[in-house]
């Protein structure tokens, strides 16, 4: 996420939003140009980070090189919303042109400004949530997410932009597997040798789907009864999740993947991300994704503008291809 190619000279304007630190109150780093085009992403981030009333949200603007009136009004609206709900929006380290525009507009007096002497916009913590709503993000290397911000799977979560072989994929988050797995998964789902089930989220489909999955993997070499049952269970769980949270059509892919079987379940709701349900009385177990986690070796998701794929790998992943994260 810490990219070295800072826009210079004739480079097109770029804008990055990074969020981290859920425990005490999130910090949002802005880099690049905040204008009409990029404002939507800041709006989303502010909306989400300010959703818990009474929190302190820090908006680090040290890396911001330009802000137009739309961007500034978003910050002001965020400040008003935070303070009206007993929270704070701290604008940290405005530099150069940003400081001047805040000064001229009188906003230096309105907003809560914090100046730290050794501000460094590239000084990001190890655990990050990278916001990738826009295509223009230039995230080429996987980033470790703060797993607190993703519903608590207590697993390291990697996020990478997928741009090779699956151009419409925006993000891939990988739970408990190696950093490059998400990208390879997306490529595999896009490639040859994929067995695909097209269906919808009606009750019949769920039964048909299990039968189909069982038949597909039954003849595969190296797939024993145990692996076969696990695959059918995962397919069913993921499809049931679609039925419940993202009704409509679904696609189920089964593909060989490093000696394991890759299950991908694609639906039409990119923004509904998997979550763990509330705990049942006195039990640590919380539902379908816990089941999936128990029987698969890695799982994650790929989101695209109009679809998302939740995937899992079942079986033994070949040695040396993924780095086991703990």
């Amino acid at each position: 996420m810490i990219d070295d190619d800072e826009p210079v000279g004739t480079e097109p304007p770029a804008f990055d939003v990074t969020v981290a630190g859920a425990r005490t109150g999130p910090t949002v780093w802005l880099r690049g140009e905040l204008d009409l085009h990029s404002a939507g992403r800041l709006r989303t981030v502010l909306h989400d980070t300010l959703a818990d009333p009474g929190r302190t949200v820090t908006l680090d603007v040290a890396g911001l090189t330009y802000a137009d009136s739309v961007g500034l009004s978003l910050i002001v609206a965020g400040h008003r919303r935070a303070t009206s709900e007993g929270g704070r929006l701290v604008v940290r380290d405005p530099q150069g042109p940003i400081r001047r525009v805040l000064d001229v507009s009188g906003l230096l007096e309105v907003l809560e400004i914090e100046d730290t002497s050794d501000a460094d916009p590239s000084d990001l913590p190890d655990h990050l949530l990278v916001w990738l709503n826009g295509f223009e993000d230039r995230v080429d290397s996987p980033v470790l997410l703060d797993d607190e911000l993703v519903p608590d799977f207590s697993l390291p979560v990697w996020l990478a932009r997928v741009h090779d072989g699956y151009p419409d994929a925006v993000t891939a988050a990988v739970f408990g597997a190696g950093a490059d797995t998400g990208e390879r998964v997306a490529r595999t789902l896009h490639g040859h040798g994929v067995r695909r089930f097209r269906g919808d989220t009606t009750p019949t489909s769920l039964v048909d789907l299990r039968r189909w999955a069982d038949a597909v993997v039954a003849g595969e070499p190296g797939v024993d009864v145990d692996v076969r049952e696990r695959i059918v269970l995962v397919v069913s769980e993921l499809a049931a999740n679609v039925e419940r949270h993202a009704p409509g059509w679904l696609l189920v892919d089964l593909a060989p993947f490093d000696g394991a079987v890759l299950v991908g379940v694609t639906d039409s709701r990119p923004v509904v991300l998997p979550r763990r349900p509330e705990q049942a009385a006195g039990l640590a177990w919380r539902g379908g994704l816990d089941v999936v986690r128990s029987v698969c070796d890695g799982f994650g998701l790929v989101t695209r503008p109009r679809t998302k794929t939740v995937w899992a790998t079942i079986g033994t992943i070949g040695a040396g291809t993924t780095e086991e994260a703990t």
Partner: protein
Amino acid sequence: MTDEEFTVEVEGEVIHLRGDLDANTAPLLDDAVRGVVESGAERVVLDLAEVAFVDSRGLRSMVQARGPAGDRDVVLRSPSRAAARILEITGLEAHFRIET
């Protein structure tokens, strides 16, 4: 997994399940449990011998059969291979009385 239709049969405090207990069929189990509880039975027995498949929604129904406080006596009788497997995977077997 089976081609058979899912069925629930209630016999006193015993609920016999047959077929795939999944997201679509689990509500039928919920209804049956409610019926048994309302009839004044002190415990609920789930006969799982002929259950061919159980998913997390099915597990949830079993968990919920224990009541809101989790203190109702629920016996899982003769779990089939599929049922035993998922109870083991999820570690939920420890929370039920299992009669083999």
